[in-house]
């Protein structure tokens, strides 16, 4: 059954050391870490869109980069099509780099201003030695441009990024991944810089490529409405940990973790009758610094349901019902009894 999953992460962690000044070193103070990703496990099925949702600083981008081997793991294991990516080297690594691609948030910053569209799309082919003749490469490039609806391709080949609109740039960034026939794409907030009226076309493009080219996505966002729209599976992240996971519609309609519930309470909706009510958000305050994460369950200082055990021990991720995972003592019957006492 392992084959159903393209990518499997088990207990992965990435801790960034905080720079110590000279006095810290002389006095041998311990190194402190920002636990950007802490003991996270997830599985992404082939051909699905897995959405990672969280507030800024929760580690969602770091997790995405770990899955791409853009960072080395500090702990845990990631397998891609059954191969451990932390040990791949040489040719195998280059092959992994080809099939695992990324689309960034800001299409104004992710394209070289001195590269024409042709250069942008030709560079990855050059690096990976795809296509031996110019004609062959042109065919691959044209096909990618047609896939992202930069048509007719001839009109765009000679253009520099500044001659393209925001939506066109993001489509060019998508085409850049497509020329290498990827299997896995990490899309890090790909529409949050774009105007509302062109977001849908980028999302539609993702859907159609998912079907036509059988691409698996990790979609990173802070926006639950978009997450529901694009996602097959949603993982909710808070301070370096995934606190809840499940099918997108289940998580949105029936959130289990208090943090997910609070996020959903807070999402504004385009309904003018909302202005007559005050939004009741179940958790208070703001997200603490990831350099100083509270003990036990990191949500406990903000959580309305917190009880004695929460600050002491982190609740392990448990399967609550079919396909639903959450890490919260509220769903552990034996522990909840303690709470009642």
């Amino acid at each position, binding site marked *: 059954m392992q084959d159903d999953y393209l990518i499997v992460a088990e207990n992965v962690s990435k801790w960034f050391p905080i720079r110590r000044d000279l006095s810290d070193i002389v006095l041998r103070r311990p190194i402190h870490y920002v636990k950007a990703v802490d003991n996270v496990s997830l599985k992404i099925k082939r051909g699905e869109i897995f959405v990672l949702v969280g507030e800024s600083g929760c580690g969602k981008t770091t997790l995405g980069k770990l899955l791409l081997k853009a960072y080395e793991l500090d702990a845990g294991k990631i397998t891609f099509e059954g191969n451990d990516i932390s040990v791949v080297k040489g040719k195998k690594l280059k092959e992994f780099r080809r099939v695992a691609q990324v689309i960034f948030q800001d299409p104004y910053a992710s394209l070289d201003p001195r590269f024409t569209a042709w250069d942008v799309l030709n560079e990855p082919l050059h690096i990976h030695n795809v296509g031996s003749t110019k004609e062959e490469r042109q065919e691959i490039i044209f096909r990618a441009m047609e896939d992202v609806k930069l048509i007719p391709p001839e009109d765009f080949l000679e253009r520099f990024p500044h001659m393209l609109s925001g939506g066109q740039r993001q489509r060019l960034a998508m085409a850049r991944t497509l020329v290498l026939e990827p299997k896995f794409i990490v899309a890090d907030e790909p529409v949050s810089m774009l105007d509302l009226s062109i977001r849908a076309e980028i999302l539609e493009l993702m859907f159609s490529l998912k079907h036509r080219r059988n691409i698996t996505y990790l979609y990173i966002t802070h926006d639950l409405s978009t997450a*529901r729209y694009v996602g097959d599976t949603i993982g909710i992240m808070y301070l370096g940990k995934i606190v809840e996971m499940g099918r997108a519609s289940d998580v949105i309609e029936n959130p289990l973790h208090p943090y997910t519930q609070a996020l959903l309470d807070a999402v504004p909706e385009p309904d003018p009758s909302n202005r007559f009510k005050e939004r009741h958000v179940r958790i208070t305050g703001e997200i603490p610094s990831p350099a100083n994460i509270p003990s036990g369950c990191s949500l406990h200082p903000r959580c309305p349901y917190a009880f004695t055990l929460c600050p002491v021990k982190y609740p392990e991720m448990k399967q609550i019902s079919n396909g639903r995972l959450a890490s919260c003592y509220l769903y552990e019957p034996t522990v909840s009894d303690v709470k009642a006492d």
Partner: protein
Amino acid sequence: MVELEVDNLKVHFFTSTGTVRAVDGVSFSLKGKSLGIAGESGSGKTTLGLALMNLIPSPGRIVSGSISLDGNNILQFNEEKYRTEVRWRQISMIFQGAMNALNPVYTIGHQLMEPLKFHSELVGEKARKKAEDALREVGLDASMMQRYPHELSGGMKQRVVIAMALILRPKIVIADEPTTALDVIVQAQVINLLKRLERELGISIIMITHDLSVISELVDIVGIMYAGELVEIGPAEQIYNNPKHPYTQKLLNAVPRLHGKRTKLESIPGIPPDLKSPPPGCRFHPRCPYVMGICKVSTPPYFTFTDQKATCWLYKEKA
């Protein structure tokens, strides 16, 4: 309750490569309600806000039109009169990204008391007390006075900026993307705060944003801007449930929703026009699915439906 009336306001930027018609003939009036101005980037919504504050940066200029407060055309005031009588006293603004523009080397208290010094000659203990009250009003502790901006979280900084805008008790507060840089939970807290202040202080908020969901949480009247023009304005219920202008209709279909049926999102083909040379006739016509011959040659006037109005030739017969 103050009445704001904007009539045929035009703000143009005279750049070396041509005249950018950033705001081109915007009219609306507002009394005792809150207004939301929604539009995509480059639609002129921030320029409109700056025009109300008489803070259009060079090479921009208000070329025509009027802005009246209770019948007085404030555009005819000289800068000195505007500064002492209108700006911050009657109309103030929460600038876009202001929370990140707090001066890092001065305390919050110092920065909060600055408008008091320049606009009301309030200094010393009185100013301090007023600043502390202003902090409490936005849900912050008076001990914040001694803190520096880097010691505050994003939500707290935004509250400070809101306190600054309210400290002289203006009647109208323009809030330009007040929640865009905030996470969703803090955003909800800030919107709750703005709602409370609106109710308790009786201020009118003019909220400028690209986010149609955020705007519906707060305002009574919604105006939609496209390419420098206010293409539709009306009560929030009308705009959201019965939009008239094709642009408004398309834009609302592009908003993903959290609950209810998962409908397919629409996008609007094409891109907004270059405001140096906007298309003739209706500026939306190159992207409009209902385009007719007249749209390409003649600029549509407002067609009115009870208290909602839209600039679209589709409603010519009904008018």
